């Protein structure tokens, strides 16, 4: 019985191992994929020297809007001076300031959009990598969950064989019934002998 229990459990163990191995392989695959995606994202960040194109772009846009505020203020002042005191000494100074601000704004704009080095161009590739990484992470999560499920399931499949009634020695043997069998054989033998001998006698009655 112990051996039968062992056999049953060996069989179920094999089935269990198979399911768990399969689930484990899924998890490993997913893990490798997630890692690859993360590494690709990191190396791209390093190469492009960016952390998050969106954040960076918003920061730069904030700067540009500040510069534009300043530019508008300077232009307004310049126009006022030109209108009311055309010979003020501040005019050339203001003009330089307006020009500098304009060029600075153009510079910043170029960094955000347009051109191969701009943030907008980088953000396309970045988003692709980001998506990939997200997807891999989700897959890894699912694989982990199914592995856990397989483990739980297999735990439940363990079978136990137990002896309910133990064998007992009978009080007296009920078989073989020797005397009975011997008598039966003797009687059957007599019957066969009777039939055969009578048939043979019958044949012997035919004479030349």
């Amino acid at each position, binding site marked *: 019985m112990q051996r039968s229990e062992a056999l049953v459990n060996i069989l179920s163990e094999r089935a269990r191992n198979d399911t768990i191995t399969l689930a484990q392989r899924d998890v490993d695959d997913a893990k490798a994929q997630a890692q690859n995606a993360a590494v690709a994202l990191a190396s791209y960040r390093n190469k492009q020297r960016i952390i998050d194109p969106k954040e960076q772009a918003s920061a730069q846009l904030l700067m540009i809007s500040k510069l534009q505020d300043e530019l508008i203020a300077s232009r307004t002042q310049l126009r006022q001076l030109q209108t009311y005191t055309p010979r003020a000494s501040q005019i050339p100074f203001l003009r330089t300031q307006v020009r500098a601000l304009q060029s600075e704004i153009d510079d910043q704009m170029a960094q955000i959009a347009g051109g191969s080095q701009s943030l907008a161009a980088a953000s396309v590739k970045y988003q692709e990598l980001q998506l990939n990484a997200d997807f891999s992470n989700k897959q890894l999560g699912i694989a982990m969950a199914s592995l856990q499920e397989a483990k739980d399931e297999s735990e439940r499949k363990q079978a136990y064989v137990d002896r309910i009634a133990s064998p007992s020695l009978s009080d007296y043997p009920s078989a073989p019934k020797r005397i009975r069998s011997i008598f039966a054989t003797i009687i059957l033998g007599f019957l066969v002998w009777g039939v055969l001998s009578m048939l043979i006698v019958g044949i*012997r009655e035919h004479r030349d």
Partner: protein
Amino acid sequence: MVSRAPTKTPFLCSLRIQIRVLSALFMREVLTRYGRHNIGFLWLFFEPMIFTLGVTALWTATQSVHGSDLPIVAFALTGYSSVLLWRNMPGRCIGALWANLPLMYHRNIRVLDIYISRLMLEFGGATISFTALGILFISLGWLEPPEDFLKVVGGWMMIAWFGSALAVTLGALSHQSELVDKLWHPASYLIFPLSGSAFMVYALPPVAQKIVLYIPMVHGVEMVREGFFGERAHAIYDLGYVIPFCLVLSVIALLLVNWVGQRVVPE
């Protein structure tokens, strides 16, 4: 009967003589019974074939209840053929000795020979009819070929053995008492519905099963059906009962033949 002292004849010689006697008696039976008119001895198996065909047609038409899902054609064929086998043997042997009394003048014709030749005839007729109808039905697609041919043969032989022993017993008794002839006909018709040809033991209530299984033909018919249909027939039979039964009956039959042989008076 024999004037000079009987010389010792070797056993094989005796056997050869008996076989010769039997074949001669067999031919004589064939000729006296069927003659040479129209199809002659073909009646030997045409008669049972017509019987079986008729019963098959009747049972098919009435959709007879037989308590199993077996096809009715196969059921009727196996059932009625075996009835013919065990019922015709005693029918033929009863009074056989009276009809053949003149032959008893011949030294080498013994009482048993007359019975055996008639039994051979009946067995051959029933077997050929069963086989021919079986082949016909199988080729028509009404019947599946038997699942276990040897089991069919075994069951058939069991019925034949029982029929022969019964036939010789009744034949020998009939020589002493006419009552046997008179009683056998009603008895055979009464046993027919109980002989297992019209029902499967499996379909009966347990109490009836116990009683029916005391009838030896039932076992043979069940065995034939199991050979034909395999597991589907749910056959119930016990060779441990039939074989001793037939052995005892054979001993009785042979003793009776001896007894009759000693007091037979040739005409």
